[in-house]
């Protein structure tokens, strides 16, 4: 009963001094908001990392192209001409050629299980009569299915002949079958569909159906009907559609027992030989595990930095609360004297001001949590990750705010409780 009265009283005195209360809460708000924000983003990134880890496989190596550092002379020139970092785009001439990759595979046949290459043609729609399905058309090498653990539920992968000839045969998702063929897989297999991609029409024969898996990152707002799924055709078919022949990037699935990190190094130096004469680009190879590692490392560094900032903000916030409570009890000295004259025991006075301090901190904490979730969600959205504010971090924040309230409110409250009633009543 007294607690309820005290909360009412505390809210009342906050209402009377809104601006002051808000300024006092600022440290708490900033501290809690940053903790919640980083937790929210951190959760998303962790989900992303582990998702990547499991879908790409930790033993995979990604080989790509990296812009070469400019020679010293050109750098100086570049500086004088408007800053460094002029971005170049890799063109067909820079790409890895089929021969390079084939030679590489032969050289390291003992270490390589498969090469996975993906060439995107574009996104569009399969349409027939009133029916439609959103798709993204990609050409892939056979190794792609191995590297990505695709679950084929009906039909087959491409044959060697289809792969070599670049036939327009397709492996589609079960979503496409649901949308176009009423979920009838028998009917879908062998059917020919028309896909409209960037104003061009492609007709393909369905040879396989895979199970669409919503990735942890696939937090899409679209309905079941509108989900975009991949349609796979042989790599060569996509290359002829794109009029290209090289690969800008590919993934190597290593054999078990091969150390991905050292193999990535060997791979990089192998391809370096081909790029000595290329002024702009150099090959780079990363193992999936090293990427995950550096990502996790970066994340924990950021988390640590923000936690330190949050800790300082909370400490400053707590001191601010203590300060304002001291001001408040000085202002209300006569009130304290009066309450004591009316028979308030010291414990009631102490409780009154501790509750007031807790209420300030918890309101600050709640505002901080709301701001933190908003900030975290915005950041997660920017990174295209699902925002997952954790309930436990919210509860911990609330408990922590309360603890700050008690910790920094105790001294002022105790000072009020121990005031001599006469001195307090005589206070001018």
């Amino acid at each position, binding site marked *: 009963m007294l607690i309820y009265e005290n909360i009412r009283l505390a809210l009342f005195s906050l209402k009377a001094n809104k601006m002051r209360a808000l300024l006092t809460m600022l440290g708490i708000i900033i501290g809690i908001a940053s903790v919640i924000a980083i937790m929210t983003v951190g959760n998303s990134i962790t989900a992303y990392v582990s998702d990547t880890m499991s879908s790409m496989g930790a033993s995979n190596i990604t080989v790509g192209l990296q812009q070469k550092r400019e020679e010293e002379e050109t750098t100086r020139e570049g500086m004088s001409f408007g800053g460094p970092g002029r971005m170049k785009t890799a063109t067909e001439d820079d790409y890895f050629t089929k021969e390079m990759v084939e030679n590489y595979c032969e050289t390291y046949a003992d270490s390589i299980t498969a090469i996975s290459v993906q060439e995107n043609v574009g996104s569009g729609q399969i349409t027939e009569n009133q029916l439609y399905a959103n798709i993204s058309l990609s050409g892939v090498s056979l190794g792609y299915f191995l590297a990505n653990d695709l679950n084929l539920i009906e039909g087959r992968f491409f044959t060697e002949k289809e792969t070599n000839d670049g036939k327009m045969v397709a492996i589609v998702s079960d979503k496409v079958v649901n949308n176009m063929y009423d979920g009838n897989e028998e009917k879908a297999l062998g059917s020919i569909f028309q896909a409209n991609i960037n104003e061009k029409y492609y007709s393909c024969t369905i040879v396989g159906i895979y199970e669409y898996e919503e990735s942890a990152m696939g937090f899409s707002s679209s309905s079941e009907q509108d989900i975009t799924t991949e349609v796979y055709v042989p790599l060569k078919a996509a290359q002829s559609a794109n009029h290209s022949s090289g690969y800008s990037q590919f993934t190597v699935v290593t054999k078990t027992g091969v150390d991905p990190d050292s193999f990535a190094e060997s791979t990089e130096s192998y391809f370096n030989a081909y790029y000595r004469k290329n002024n702009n680009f150099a090959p780079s190879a990363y193992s999936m595990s090293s990427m995950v590692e550096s990502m996790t490392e970066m994340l924990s560094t950021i988390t640590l930095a923000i936690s330190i900032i949050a800790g300082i903000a909370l400490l400053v916030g707590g001191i601010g609360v203590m300060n304002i409570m001291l001001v408040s009890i000085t202002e209300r000295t006569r009130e304290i004297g009066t309450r004591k004259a*009316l*028979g*308030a025991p010291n414990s009631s006075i102490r409780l009154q001001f501790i509750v007031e301090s807790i209420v300030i901190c918890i309101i600050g904490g709640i505002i901080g949590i709301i701001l933190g979730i908003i900030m975290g969600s915005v950041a997660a959205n920017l990174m295209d990750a699902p925002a997952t504010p954790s309930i436990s971090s919210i509860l911990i924040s609330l408990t922590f705010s309360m603890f700050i309230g008690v910790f920094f409110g105790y001294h002022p409250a105790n000072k009020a409780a121990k005031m001599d009633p006469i001195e307090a009543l005589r206070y001018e």
Partner: protein
Amino acid sequence: MEKKKVIDMKGIKKRFYIGTPNELEVLKGIDIEVYEGEFVAIVGASGSGKSTLMNIIGSLDRPTEGTYFLDDVNITEAKDHQLSAIRNQKIGFVFQTYNLIAKTNALKNVEMPMLYGKVNGKQRVERAKELLTIVGMEDRLKHLPEELSGGQKQRVAIARAMANNPAIILADEPTGALDSETGRMVMDLFHKLHKEQGKTIILITHSPELAEETERIITIKDGLITGERKGSGKQC
């Protein structure tokens, strides 16, 4: 039938700044007895120690020397939390400066002693309304102190002093900050509480006319009782 002694004080001394060169003896040995249902006035020059005496009577302060029984409880030996309970249950203070709790309406102000006395919510509100009706403030229940005139504030304060039905009401210059007309109204209220509810009232006042209306007048000079005589006990 002999009346009960509510206040029994012997040899009360009060010194401030003890052990410093500024040591000041404000009360120099006071003996007072007050019986149940009495209406007593304490008069004396400013600085003579009236408020200091009142604070000791109200158990807000402890005497440096002497014995004091309030309603048969030995105040000089009571602990702090016992004094709080005594103030809450047996004493009703009325101050010159009203001392209503700011930003808290009349009803809540009157409820406050009952809150500390652990009276339940419904009873509190009922009793507070009843008391505010007695002092003629029933139509200002939700008004804040800053919205009330001096006389109205003092009436709320008197209602608050009555909240836990205390044995004694202590009023330290309750009309000191009021004009004579409003002061009259407040004084009438004390008469009413004295007659209708049989309250024991101790009143400190500067006004000889008001003192004359009480039953007994005690004069204090430089921390000593210098005179005691009967008043008319009549309300004018």
